């Protein structure tokens, strides 16, 4: 289990990185935390001719908040994000989901952006990004574009990134008072990818009715998916037990889950319903609470 040969490039700044990505196009892979890429390369499931290591690119490790947006640069480690007071306060869902990723030593190398770019349909962080209505900031030599999370994930391990492009950051709107979020999952072993996971954000209006709701699932499709029927069922309801049950029951509508040795498609549909119910209950409670306790 050893990687095939490749050329190693370690750009110092973003322009250099983008030039290299432009030059090598589809032959190149970005190396961030390496916690997925190196695994794939060891198994020769990926054999890029060129590896562009972005870990030394200046400025990509910024985690900052301005104008109601939290922005995580491409080399912000999962562990940093999870432990960041800013993230805890302003995007607690990201911290809660992040704590389910692998184990501390893996998270201290792995990056949030790397997980998003990897687009594993079972992964927690892409799902959290989707539930948070986040955006992916993409750069290439020809400029920058911002892609809605809804549009970024196109299939298993595939995204709307084109050759020559890389993700420089992800952005999420800060979670405001009155919005509750929750992430729950079932993994067969602590730290493993979940069989199914649910990220939910629920906003309660002053009238106590449920306003905007976003529910995203992992392990339930070829990419992180929204449970739109469940969202619709909950939105406008009183957020009570019956409403949550109704929404949960609809969480598996339209899903076409993957199946593997950890769970069949039917089981994942089942979990989607159960976990949606649990995530919604917690998110609704948190929305009603004073603070967004995690």
């Amino acid at each position, binding site marked *: *289990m*050893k990687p095939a040969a490749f050329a190693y490039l370690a750009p110092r700044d973003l322009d250099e990185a983008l030039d290299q990505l432009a030059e*090598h196009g589809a032959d190149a892979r970005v*190396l961030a935390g390496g916690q997925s890429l190196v*695994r794939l390369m*060891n198994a020769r499931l990926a054999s890029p001719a*060129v*590896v562009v*290591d972005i870990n030394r690119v200046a400025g990509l490790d910024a985690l900052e908040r301005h104008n109601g947006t939290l922005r995580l640069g491409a080399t912000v480690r999962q562990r940093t994000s999870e432990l960041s007071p800013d993230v805890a306060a302003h995007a607690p869902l990201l911290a809660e989901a992040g704590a389910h990723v692998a*184990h501390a030593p893996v998270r201290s190398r792995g990056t949030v952006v790397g997980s998003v770019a990897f687009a594993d349909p079972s992964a927690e962080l892409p799902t959290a990004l989707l539930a948070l209505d986040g955006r992916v900031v993409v750069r290439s030599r020809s400029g920058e574009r911002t892609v809605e999370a809804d549009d970024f994930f196109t299939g298993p391990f595939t995204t709307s990134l084109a050759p020559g492009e890389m993700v420089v950051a992800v952005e999420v709107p800060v979670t405001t008072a009155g919005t509750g979020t929750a992430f729950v999952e079932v993994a067969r072993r602590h730290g493993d990818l979940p069989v199914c996971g649910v990220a939910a954000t629920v906003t309660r209006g002053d009238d106590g009715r449920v306003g905007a709701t976003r529910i995203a699932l992992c392990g339930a499709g070829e990419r992180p998916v929204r449970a739109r029927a469940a969202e619709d069922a909950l939105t406008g309801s009183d957020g009570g037990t019956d409403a949550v049950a109704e929404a949960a029951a609809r969480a598996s509508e339209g899903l076409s889950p993957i199946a593997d040795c950890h769970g069949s498609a039917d089981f994942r549909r089942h979990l989607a319903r159960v976990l949606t119910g649990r995530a919604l209950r917690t998110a609704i409670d948190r929305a009603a609470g004073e603070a967004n306790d995690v």
Partner: protein
Amino acid sequence: MSEVVTPEKVRIRITVNDTAHDLLVEPRTLLADLLRGELELTGTHVGCEQGVCGACTVLVDGAATRSCLVFAAQLDGATVRTVESLAGADGTLHPIQQAFHENHGLQCGFCTPGMLMGACELLERTTAPEPDDVREALGGNLCRCTGYQNIVKSVCAAGAALATERNGQA
């Protein structure tokens, strides 16, 4: 699309267990293989090469790191510590090793270097770890022999021993 690139070796200056090395490495050489091969530090073990077992854990700039998921080429300027750095040349075990010895925290010893290095990182930042802290830090390290109970015990005991040692010095 580019033409095929011939991999060039990469120069790294890396400090391993307090010894500075100036090396030319192939880009694809994993840190685990550099340590075990060229540097002949075979105390670091390889169990899965997928990041899942933790046997290969070493400290890179103080952080517990799966050495099977890092290329040596990435480590120019880095400081690496492996299990060989723990015991004294006179055979004195490091307090963490001593705690594993006293609490029967190992059987075959294959997972042990990874456990020890993970514990080192933990005990750098936590003086009196609770069992749950140990699980958080070492939960990704698999052991097929011990059933973990004594490993958790060992790390907690090592925390206590190190705390005493530090207090004694203060």
